[in-house]
């Protein structure tokens, strides 16, 4: 904090005082906007979750009745369980594939740039665009199953999208397809930032390559892992287009997620109160992930 004892600060002039307030003035509009549009709306949603609102908001309060109904709703539990399965698998698989591809790509590969672009591009597309193709690929009669069977492997089966117990995993496949290249790119940039001499030293000690990566390189990449987990977790919680485009929540409601549950109830089923209650629980989940992140982010900031 060296700048706070600059000579200017000792004798404040009018313009000096303005200068001192400028940063706050600059931040003020954004802060106000966020305060209203994020926190105000959250409060608004909370208030709605305490009402019996149906098609449009009404302010007829029913206490925590909507939450009680939510807890008794089978579909909500399916959606929540799905989010846990989906979120955990999505984050884990993306990390593994991303790290693996990054390490492989880091071996002085020819055409690295082209490969990297191919891995990365899915992040640029929304599922509104790629949903139709994914539906084709996963459909047992049109997609991969039909293709492989057409090659002569008659007994090949890939019909997860039809199976209520497996449908959620098709979402994982498509989501991993979209985001793992991005994670790869994060890891790759992280790898490039590591000092070669550390690796050289380990090599001289006679450590095997996998061992070097596991013991020496990975620890250096911890901040990357951390950022990647945050980005992936936030994608998982917000996943909406994905479900709508691929499974529509089906078969039945076997692949429903909280985001689609909330949308369906608030907008298609005239249950804004119930939808708002589910939104508040989603926000609670977000907070549970975000608070540790913010804590470490701000703490490391102080030390940094």
């Amino acid at each position, binding site marked *: *904090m*060296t700048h706070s004892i600059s000579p*200017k600060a000792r004798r404040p002039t009018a313009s000096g005082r303005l*200068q001192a307030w*400028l*940063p*706050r003035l*600059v*931040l003020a509009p*954004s*802060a106000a*906007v*966020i*305060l209203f*549009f*994020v926190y105000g*709306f*959250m409060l608004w*949603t909370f208030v709605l979750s305490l009402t019996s609102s149906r098609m449009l908001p009404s302010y007829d309060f029913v206490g925590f009745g909507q939450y009680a109904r939510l807890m008794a709703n089978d579909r909500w539990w399916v959606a929540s369980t799905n989010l846990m399965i989906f979120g955990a698998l999505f984050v884990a698989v993306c990390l593994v594939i991303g790290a693996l591809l990054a390490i*492989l*790509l880091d071996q002085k*590969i020819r055409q690295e*740039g082209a*490969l*990297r*672009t*191919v*891995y*990365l*591009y*899915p*992040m*640029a*597309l*929304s599922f*509104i*665009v*790629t949903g*139709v*193709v994914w539906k*084709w*690929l996963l459909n047992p009669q049109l997609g991969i199953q039909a293709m492989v069977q057409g090659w002569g492997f008659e007994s090949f089966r890939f019909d997860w999208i039809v199976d209520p117990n497996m449908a959620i995993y098709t979402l994982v496949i498509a989501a991993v*397809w979209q985001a793992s290249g991005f994670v790869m*790119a*994060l890891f790759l*940039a992280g790898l490039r930032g590591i000092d070669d001499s550390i690796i050289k030293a380990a090599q001289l000690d006679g450590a095997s390559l996998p061992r070097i990566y596991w013991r020496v390189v990975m620890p250096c990449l911890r*901040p*990357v892992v951390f950022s990647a987990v945050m980005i992936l977790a*936030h994608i998982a919680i*917000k996943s*909406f287009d994905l479900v709508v485009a691929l499974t529509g929540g089906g078969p039945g409601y076997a692949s429903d997620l909280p*985001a689609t549950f909330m*949308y369906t109830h608030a*907008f298609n089923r005239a249950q804004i109160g119930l939808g708002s209650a589910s939104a508040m629980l989603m926000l609670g989940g*977000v907070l549970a992930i*975000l608070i540790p992140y*913010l804590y*470490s982010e*701000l703490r*490391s900031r102080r030390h940094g």
Partner: protein
Amino acid sequence: MADAIRRQTVGARLLRGALYAVLILAALFYALPLLIMLITSIKPLSEITAGSLLSLPQNPTLAPWTKAWGEACTGMRCEGVGGYFWNSFAIVIPAVLISTAAGALNGYALTKWRFKGAEIVFALMLFGCFIPFQVVLLPMAQTLGWLGLSSSRAGLVLVHVVFGIAFTTLFFRNFYVGIPDELVSAAKLDGAGFFRIFWRILLPVSAPIIVVSIIWQFTQIWNDFLFGVAFSGHDTQPVTVALNNLVNTSTGVTEYNVNMAAAMIAALPTLVVYVLAGKYFVRGLTAGSVKG
């Protein structure tokens, strides 16, 4: 070079071959959906119903593309997605510029002019990144109504700016943290003011993070469907909404080739941006996010 020569044993060559095989297989996995879209979009309809997903077009044609652009029906209007394509640009460009500019100033004020409570303000802003958009749909609709901006482009721009600021602020804040404070304090000693320091010292080195912010925002806003469908008027709908209408407008036989061509058209701007600037995107993003 010594390394390379030492590696040329049989085992090492096999390993190298396996390495390339894995990388190329992975590339196929990622490329497959786009390839299918592309192949399908230039096939005549008869070949699609007859052949398999991956069979190459026998008589490639651009007719589906011209139809998707200018003739295909989205609801009752049969003018293709072309017009909506420009609608999207009219929304995306101002929204990206405004949110990036705001994010840059915010990040600068938060890191180089630390004041009491700056970190709280930042923490509060960060939460804006994580709010599921379905949650804000109805309150936003009412607010837009109060502001007199419902069903207008300006309204959509506002929505995207509001929910983009959190991200852009995060990017710039993380990037500026890594810029040595000494540069700024020296300039302060010389009597340079807030904007002057930003303009002369921070902005010239901000290129990587500006690229990140622009690409991120461009992709997010271009791909948005939810806000686009809920807050646009009948003549301001973005291309994703038109695409959805087109895909769901079918006469008897679904024209998969036209649907795919329309999807490709809708995807093209973001694809081009990623292919051309993807390298800078990743580089800039890591510059910000790896710093703890």
